[in-house]
């Protein structure tokens, strides 16, 4: 710690910080652009100038950039003095010379860091009389708009895109007053985290195109603290609505999970909430097989009779529904009749994961991942299956650089200097996957079939236990893991191969005996896989029932065609509770319209066992209700869960019935929580136009809907500013309209943002030691095996229903090397069929980097269930003889064209 004097007042601050971090941490309003709390300092914008004095007798002082100046004990500073503020005013004046006067039509307006900092710096009259610099903009794809004329050249975009997230198709071009940030030519930004540019850019150069499509100002948005349901990591998001439509998703800071950044699936994938495929009303299929809309009352009474009359009822839960809804369904049908609704493979992996969470093995948070100094990835395509984790692994490999910097006494916030010093030095990362991985470039990529990955894992575990290993790769992996102070093993269900996960568990078990800091992170397919798996070990019923209730689950993604058809034929009444029409709702006889994550509260348990509560931004239309609410009402009609009325009551029932889930109650404050005696407002205090929303119908403003289930309110009445971080509906502070206002709520820069932000880790009883798991990797190496290939855009069920995401999804393909192709009797331009003809045709593409015997297939709505079938065995893949290749089929792979 160090004592510093700021404008005559003395404070104690952290001496590993720079002055800007220390001053912002003290609550000073000090403007900045190029510094970013996660990316550190650069020193290009020169906006955060303060005056530093040599000693008490120094009356002149000198201007220093606070972001580039370390905290030193006894430093005497002036932030508000004339010399410092004059410099900052001159600087912003120069910075703004070329900035257009387009705030009224700029999408950043109203939450623009540049606006805020300009006002803060005191510059208001422009004296510049000459022509402004202008640029041509580029088409950067379906997510991000580009308006270079607004650029203030802070270099944040390229630092995030290149340095931080490893993208190489966005760069700074040109020099002097004409620096251009963009691509060499128009085209979709390739990096999976490009969307963060929208928030990283301090002004309106990079904007959210999915918001532009139905733009609204930040102050007119109604928002809520939510949890992303795009994968198993549970990133914290702010979801925002206007006029009953989700408008956008922003990052919500959580120091232990996603920090400041999201992936593009999470950011741009919420549009399905507004889809035309939403189920708008309750419905019953009539005698002619036509769905008729009914009232909630009618359908509930219909269901009451149906359930009372039924001899057998089964409930199929959901890995994407809330813990509460799954629990309510379990209660309704009884434990014996409740199934998790997972695929058999995912259920097996989730069960392994629960064993790990309930053992003494350490499961790190994403923040802890970034501290790991050796990473082994076993059969998990992080970038496409659990994307935000890939970004954390990219930071983990920088620990070598950070160590070098510490040795050279370069502070870690001096980002450019740390990178220059370290150059290409990286902590070890090994990526054992079946096809090229985005992380190959920062580590060692090793291509193996799933069976061989599992075998390699077993050998690594043996090597750690002391068995001599011949294979050089295995040796170097063992050496890196055993030499690391915080080794990390990453695995998961993306390869749909439980043997790989078992091998990973055994590696972590072996390593933990030597090093208690060993981490093991298992990624599953869905946001709430663990909740569903925890409530039932049985994935799917083998026999039918009079009534089957399917909760938010498109079973065709998890149970392959014929098996599903057989089961459906044995079900008399199929009741579906879901938000979007899908292949199961289309075969149902009764449907209840469920709210999406954007309209409902719910608990999600992420892949590290962290329970987090998500809140809806708005009340859904008409009879649409949260799935847990429907199920609670159905339970009441069966005299179950009596006395349980509100969300908190339901959570309480879960806690009393399941000791290991009790922590979920504390994941967020309950509905009775108040700040200064007030509820927390979802709308901004300057929310405009609310009174005019229904003015075409009546001039009398209707009563706002009430929220009895949470401490949030659908109104601008109440308070948001003083609410705890995890309950903040949006981030704003006086003078700080942009998301940069988060620093106003953090207890220190990049520290925790007040109480309750971070969720609650469940399964914390870690007394039991995990014995080495029995492994039986497939022995038939001559067989062809299918490896699922996840795609960040296209593999997730719900986000794929957004137009922008879907436009980047691949068509079904089969990627294999030439030896495998000749074994299967196909060549490029042919097609293969999975599962002897049920699944869609896969266009054959050759890639000799793929391990022999592997056929890589994309996880898509139409292929997913087949990819979770037992993967080895002859006859799994057959040539599609009826395939007529498209006219340009010869040109699928560009490298083929020349040969």
């Amino acid at each position, binding site marked *: 710690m160090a004592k510093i004097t700021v404008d005559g007042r003395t404070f104690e601050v952290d001496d590993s910080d720079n002055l800007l971090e220390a001053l912002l941490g003290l609550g000073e309003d000090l403007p900045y652009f190029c510094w970013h709390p996660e990316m550190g*300092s*650069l*020193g*290009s*914008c*020169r*906006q955060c*100038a303060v005056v530093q004095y040599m000693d008490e007798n120094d009356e002149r002082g*000198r*201007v*220093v950039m606070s972001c*580039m100046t370390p905290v030193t004990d006894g430093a005497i500073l002036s932030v508000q003095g004339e010399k410092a503020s004059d*410099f900052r005013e*001159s*600087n912003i004046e*120069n*910075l703004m*010379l*070329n900035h257009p006067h387009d705030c009224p039509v700029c999408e950043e307006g109203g939450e623009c860091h540049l606006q805020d900092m300009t006002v803060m710096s005191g510059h208001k009259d422009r*004296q*510049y009389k*000459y022509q402004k610099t202008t640029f041509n903009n580029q088409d950067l794809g379906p997510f991000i708009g580009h308006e270079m004329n607004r650029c*203030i*050249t802070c*270099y944040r975009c390229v630092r995030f895109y290149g340095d931080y997230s490893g993208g190489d198709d966005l760069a*700074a071009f*040109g*020099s*002097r*007053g*004409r*620096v251009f940030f963009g691509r060499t030519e128009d085209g979709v930004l390739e990096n999976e985290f490009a969307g963060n540019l929208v928030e990283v850019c301090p002004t309106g150069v990079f904007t959210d195109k999915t918001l532009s499509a139905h733009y609204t100002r930040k102050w007119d948005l109604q928002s809520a603290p939510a949890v992303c349901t795009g994968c198993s990591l549970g990133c914290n998001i702010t979801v925002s609505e206007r006029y009953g439509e989700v408008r956008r998703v922003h990052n919500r800071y959580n120091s232990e999970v996603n920090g400041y950044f999201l992936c593009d699936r999470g950011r741009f994938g919420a549009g399905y909430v507004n889809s035309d495929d939403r189920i708008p009303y309750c419905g019953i299929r009539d005698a002619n097989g036509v769905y008729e809309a009914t009232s909630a009352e009618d359908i509930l009474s219909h269901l009451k009779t149906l359930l009372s009359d039924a001899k057998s009822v089964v409930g199929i839960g959901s890995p994407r529904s809330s813990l509460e809804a799954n629990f309510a369904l379990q209660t309704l049908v009884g434990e014996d009749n409740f199934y998790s609704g997972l695929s058999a493979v995912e259920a097996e992996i989730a069960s392994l994961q629960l064993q790990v969470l309930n053992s003494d093995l350490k499961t790190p948070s994403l923040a802890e991942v970034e501290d790991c100094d050796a990473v082994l990835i076993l059969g998990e395509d992080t970038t496409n299956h659990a994307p935000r984790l890939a970004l954390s692994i990219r930071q983990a490999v920088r620990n070598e650089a950070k160590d*070098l910097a510490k040795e*050279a006494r*370069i502070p870690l916030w*001096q980002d*450019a*200097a740390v990178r*220059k*010093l*370290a*150059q290409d030095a990286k902590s070890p990362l090994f990526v054992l996957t079946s096809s090229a991985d985005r992380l190959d470039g920062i580590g060692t990529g090793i291509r193996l079939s799933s069976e061989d990955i599992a075998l390699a894992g077993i050998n690594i575990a043996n090597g750690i236990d002391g068995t001599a290993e011949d294979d050089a790769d295995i040796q170097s992996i063992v050496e890196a893991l055993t030499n690391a102070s915080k080794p990390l093993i990453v695995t998961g269900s993306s390869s749909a191969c439980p043997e790989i996960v078992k091998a990973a568990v055994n590696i972590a078990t072996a390593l933990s005996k030597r090093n208690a800091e060993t981490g093991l992170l298992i990624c599953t397919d869905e946001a709430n896989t663990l909740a569903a798996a925890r409530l039932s070990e049985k994935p799917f019923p083998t026999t039918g029932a009079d009534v089957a209730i399917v909760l938010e689950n498109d079973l065709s993604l998890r149970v392959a065609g014929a098996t599903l058809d057989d089961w459906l034929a044995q079900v008399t009444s199929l009741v579906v509770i879901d938000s979007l029409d899908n292949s199961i709702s289309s075969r149902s006889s009764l449907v209840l319209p469920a709210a999406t994550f954007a309209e409902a509260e719910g608990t999600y348990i992420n892949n590290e066992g962290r329970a987090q509560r998500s809140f809806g931004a708005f009340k859904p239309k008409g009879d649409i209700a949260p799935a847990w609410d429907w199920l609670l009402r159905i339970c009441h009609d069966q005299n179950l869960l009596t006395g349980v009325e509100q969300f908190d009551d339901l959570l309480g029932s879960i806690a009393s019935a399941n000791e290991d889930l009790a922590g979920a109650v504390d994941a967020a404050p309950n509905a009775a929580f108040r700040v200064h005696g007030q509820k927390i407002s979802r709308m901004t205090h300057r929310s405009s136009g609310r009174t005019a929303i229904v003015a075409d119908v009546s001039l009398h403003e209707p009563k706002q809907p009430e929220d009895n289930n949470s401490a949030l309110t659908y109104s601008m009445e109440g308070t948001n500013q003083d609410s705890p971080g995890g309950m903040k509906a949006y981030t704003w502070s006086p003078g700080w309209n942009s998301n940069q206002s988060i620093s106003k709520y953090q207890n220190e820069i990049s520290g925790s943002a007040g109480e309750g932000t971070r969720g609650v880790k469940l399964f914390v009883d870690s007394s039991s030691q995990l014995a080495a798991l029995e492994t039986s990797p497939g022995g038939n190496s001559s067989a062809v095996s299918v490896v699922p290939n996840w795609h960040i855009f296209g593999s997730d069920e719900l986000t794929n229903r957004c137009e922008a995401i879907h436009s980047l999804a691949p068509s079904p393909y089969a990627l294999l090397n030439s030896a495998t192709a000749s074994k299967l009797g196909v060549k490029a331009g042919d097609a293969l069929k999975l599962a002897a003809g049920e699944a869609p045709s896969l266009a054959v593409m050759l890639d000799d980097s793929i391990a022999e015997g592997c056929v890589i297939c994309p996880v898509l709505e139409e292929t997913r269930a087949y990819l979770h079938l037992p993967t080895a065995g002859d006859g799994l893949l057959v040539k599609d003889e009826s395939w007529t290749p498209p006219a340009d089929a010869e040109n699928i792979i560009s490298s083929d064209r020349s040969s």
Partner: protein
Amino acid sequence: MTDKPLTKNIKGDKPADLAAYEANGGYVAVRDTIGKKSSSDLLDIIKDSNLRGRGGAGFPTGMKWSFVPMDKTEGHKYLVCNADEMEPGTFKDRVIMEKDPHQLVEGMILSAYTIDADIGYIFIRAEYHAAARRLREAINAAKEKGYLGENILGTGYNFELHVHSSAGRYICGEETALLNSLEGKRANPRAKPPFPQVSGLWGRPTIVNNVETLCNITHIVANGADWFKDLGLGEDSGTKLFGVSGRVKSPGCWELPMGTPIREIIEDHAGGMADGYELKGFLPGGASTDFLLPEHLDLAMDYDVIMKAGSRMGTGTMIILDDQVCPVAMVRNIIEFFARESCGFCTPCRDGLPWVHKILDSIENGRGEPQGMDILNRQAAFLGAIGHTNCALAPGAIEPLASAMKYFGDEFNQHIEEKRCPYSNKNGAN
């Protein structure tokens, strides 16, 4: 011993080849030093010689070198010669590199040995084709003779030397921008600390020195620190390549003792002002130094003397302002150059210089407004201090402007009042 060590081999247009260079005492210092003297002894000699960097900033060379960590043996250390001579009005390094390339090669071998560097680069201005070619020839010849490369003269010391032609930006002359450029990155100056001595080229300890500085090393090592100190007339040691450009009778470049009076350089060596022109002022050390006036002619060209007079000795190559050139136009040209050569990294330089240029352009063209002068004064204060900006480019660019406004402020106002350039016959043209 000569009193003109830097130019003793320069005769006529042809460069001194290895034989000629050796015949005149060349590589004796290398033979007598490598493997025979310790690097710390050499460093002491350099420190003792009081040699100051000849690239413009005048930083003591021995002190600069003393920050190189000498305890670590693993990994490369680099010596980089800054031959990116792009300061307007400066052409001194070119003379050495074109006419006596071995002098630089020998200086680099000795310098590298002192800091224990094993790889050297000569980062040379893009347009210096002849110099680059002759340096490459010299390097090859020295290599064949065993002065360079692996196991120099059988001593076990290795030093590889490469010539790298710049892609042509003024900012590459800033030592850390040079390093970034050499790494193939954008030529933005780096923040300091860390200094290149600790984390330079590819993150390794690196020394960057100017051509003339490195050439001096040979002579200091050969003749001793006292000899070198005695060469200077005043406080500063050694000789210096001084140059004069502008309307003088014989513009050129001469090796003269440090501390030579300005009057002697302009009147004796450059032959005085051309007929019909009077000296109005001059930039003593290149385009990025403050104007001095005829009243300063008797000052000695010493770093501290020129500093006290309110300017900098810079590269020691003067640019003359005569009575028939408009000072506003001259400053406008200089600012236009620097605005164009800004790397675009930090705000004051990137955005501030173009604004200054546009104001000067409008004043020169009869479209100036009185508040333009207020803005120029404000901008001069804003851009003019090191620390306000990331590197010294903008403060250097402001020096001729700020001093011109101080000395020739009336002429700026005259432009604005008369809405024309008084030096021009026609309105709006010069």
